């Protein structure tokens, strides 16, 4: 019974983070800030949801852990690839930005 309640709470937290991540992708001003929200919040949200499901059904726990780990390993790599590709494509940073040491180095 307790594992049910704990799992449901974990899933609820995860789902809320998934929603916040989506909201972040919608609201942020440029590609890089969208990646910040889209990667961090959705990764933790999915992690929490999947582990919560594993806790509710103990026989699936290890498999859910494998899926969660796979997401934890691959999502940052995908985000890095998108960010790098956008910069190479010449997507501008938002006007709010204060410093760009990557671009400075490129110009020299």
């Amino acid at each position: 019974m307790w594992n049910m309640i704990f799992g449901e709470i974990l899933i609820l937290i995860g789902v809320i983070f998934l929603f916040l991540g989506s909201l972040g992708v919608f609201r942020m001003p440029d590609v890089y800030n969208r990646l910040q929200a889209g990667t961090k919040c959705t990764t933790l949200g999915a992690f929490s949801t999947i582990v919560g499901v594993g806790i509710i059904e103990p026989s699936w726990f290890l498999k859910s852990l494998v899926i969660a780990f796979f997401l934890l390993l691959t999502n940052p790599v995908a985000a890095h690839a998108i960010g790098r590709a956008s910069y190479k494509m010449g997507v501008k940073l938002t006007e709010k930005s204060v410093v760009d040491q990557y671009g400075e180095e490129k110009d020299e």
Partner: protein
Amino acid sequence: MSQAVSGLMWYIYAGFILLGLFLLFLRFILGPTSSDRVVSVDAMTTVTTALLVLFSLFFKRGIYMDVALVYAVLAFITVLAIARYFEGGL
């Protein structure tokens, strides 16, 4: 009793996830550059993986977890392929 609670919770989960997917979809249509669209697709695939795992809980079929894992693998490679294409490395 617990059945009823999980039934109610299911609607809350589905509501949050659908709302999130709707926002991502709006970003997908509005996004000024193609990079924005890829970002929203990347977030969508993560949300969908979580949704597939929730489905396997809802239908009580452990086998559906495999589907979620296949989806995670293929989504990662898709996003990577698009990013590499943008970079000019394909």
